[in-house]
């Protein structure tokens, strides 16, 4: 099976993030591979082990390629970085357009992605790529069963109160949810291989796209303003005796905190 996995390097949850200006964030230089992308890589590798073929990891990023290296460390065969100065400031649709432009001529059976990136939490790129390629997609899958790729696949996703089981023909795109599998810890042999791996680079021109297709000017989504989360208010101690303190608490919850 020819499998492509879309990956992204995102800020580590421990990284300090500050709002620098209305439209700019200052992010500490601590990044890791998007949590959900590891389930996608693992699912791809499992299918390769069963049916043979090739797993290629693919990212759009001008600087960080560690998500690609992690893919190789886990066992992917190839890594492609789509990089171009014109991609700066792109929204999810422009990213999807670049990915689809790369994938459209490729003989893929399956495209996998994480269910969403942990930085913007948008969950748009995966489905948008499928739409641009005109192939079916299922999001947040928890199960993927393949007996014969020619006959399609069975995917399982969680729905309110139960599970939904769908059959789907290939090629298709699925976005992966935690619980789909247990991503492997890379063996050091593969880590070393990943450290030395040559990452193939593609720019927009090589994909048949122009600068106008990407970056801020092509964005369908524009960030109006970044706001930091509100600071936690100081603890207020109610120093009255029972039952007055309960009355005061209820009053405060209703009138100040506005939670009841």
């Amino acid at each position, binding site marked *: 099976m020819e499998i492509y996995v879309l990956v992204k390097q995102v800020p580590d949850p421990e990284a300090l993030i500050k709002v620098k200006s209305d439209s700019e964030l200052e992010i500490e230089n601590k990044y*890791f591979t998007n949590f959900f992308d590891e389930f996608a890589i693992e699912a791809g590798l499992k299918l390769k082990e069963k049916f043979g073929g090739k797993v290629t990891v693919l990212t759009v990023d001008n600087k960080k390629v*560690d998500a690609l*290296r*992690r893919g190789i*460390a886990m066992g992917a065969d190839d890594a492609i970085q789509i990089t171009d100065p014109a991609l700066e400031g792109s929204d999810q649709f422009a990213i999807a357009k670049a990915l689809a432009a790369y994938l459209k001529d490729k003989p893929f059976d399956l495209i996998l992605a994480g269910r969403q990136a942990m930085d913007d939490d948008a969950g748009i790129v995966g489905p948008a790529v499928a739409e641009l390629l005109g192939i079916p997609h299922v999001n947040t899958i928890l199960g993927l069963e393949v007996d014969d790729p020619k006959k399609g696949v069975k995917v399982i996703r969680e729905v309110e109160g139960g599970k939904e089981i769908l059959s789907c023909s290939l090629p298709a795109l699925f976005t992966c949810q935690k619980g789909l599998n247990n991503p492997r*810890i*890379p*063996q*050091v*042999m593969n*880590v*070393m291989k*990943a*450290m*030395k791996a040559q990452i193939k680079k593609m720019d927009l021109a090589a994909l048949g796209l122009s600068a106008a297709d990407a970056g801020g000017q092509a964005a369908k989504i524009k960030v109006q303003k970044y706001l930091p989360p509100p600071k936690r208010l100081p*603890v207020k101690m109610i120093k009255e005796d029972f039952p007055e303190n309960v009355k005061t608490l209820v009053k405060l919850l209703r009138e100040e905190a506005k939670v009841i």
Partner: protein
Amino acid sequence: MALDFTFTEEQEFFRQMVRDAVNRLIMPRVKELDEKEEFPWDLWKEFAALGYLGLRHEEKYGGMATDTISQMIFYEELARGSCGFAMAAIMQILMGTYFIALFGSENIKQRILVPAIKGEKIGTICFTEDQSGSDLGGTRTLATKVDGGWRINGRKQWITNGPIADFTTVMATVDPKLGLKGLNFYLVEKKTADRDGFTPGQRLHKLGSRCSVTGELVFDNVFIPDENFLGEQIGKGVQYAGDILNEVRIMTAMNALAIAKGAMEDARGYAKNRIAFGNPISKYQLIREKFAKYWAWYEVSWNYTYKCAWMIQNKITCTNECMLAKYHATEMCMYAVEEAMRIYGGNAFCTEYPPQRYWRDAKFLLYGGGTHEVLCDYLGRIFCKD
């Protein structure tokens, strides 16, 4: 650019991968590993399967032949988890297989090194005796030349992995009167029904680093073939020991850095949440000073230890530097774990909270690679040019 403090992109990636493996395999079990005080065979097998035991060794024996800086990155990240497990693994990676890789015959490498890299055979090294440790010249374990080989007699103590070891590199003297000049290294395997070898003696119960098993090895007139002599010529053991001790010392410094950081980062989390007199205690100057002092000493130590790794990698003589790094990092660690105990207040005194574990583990680092009294005496002598 002669002065460059950056890690390569590859080294940063390597750190990320090791950290990830430690986070997933070891971190969830740190408390259990400490409390059980048993060698975690299941974790050992999982860890060995990832291939890290071959970190230093040649690729043709199943190793990765990484550079010294990557090895130090690995030690630093591994020790962030369980100090005990790190000690057991590093014994295998560094000390336990060092002389076998350096001087072993092809036969020995195939028979011992290859399974050791796979984690199938456990190795260790023996320096310490009841009357000698940092004082290597006081070694009394005797190696006597006999027809076709050697006979080893003596008892070695404080042997990490000793109770479970399949093979060891033992430091022994051809004549105790020769002091440092009589020392050599020999490969000795565990005694079996059809092979002479060492027998494990008493196991020790330790204050910290508790999931690495430590004990005595007994060499009772053990015959070993000539092939098991590890070295180029007789009497050069102390010179070889000098080379390995450089690496052992900065490895110990890395462990100290990791423990100090773990203790202080946990303490920071505690201090930001523990309320006293209406504020988190991290808002009080006396608590902040502890963090500031630790931070200043930690950064200095961390940079200097990596400088030593860089010197080893570039084959620059650095015996004194490695001693200084070990001494500084371990003393810094003593400060950090002690202050973490104070930041936690009374809670530090119960085993439910982590600072006591960092405190106990840290003490283990005072002795390996030379006690601080021995190191300081030597360094002071060098400084005074006496």
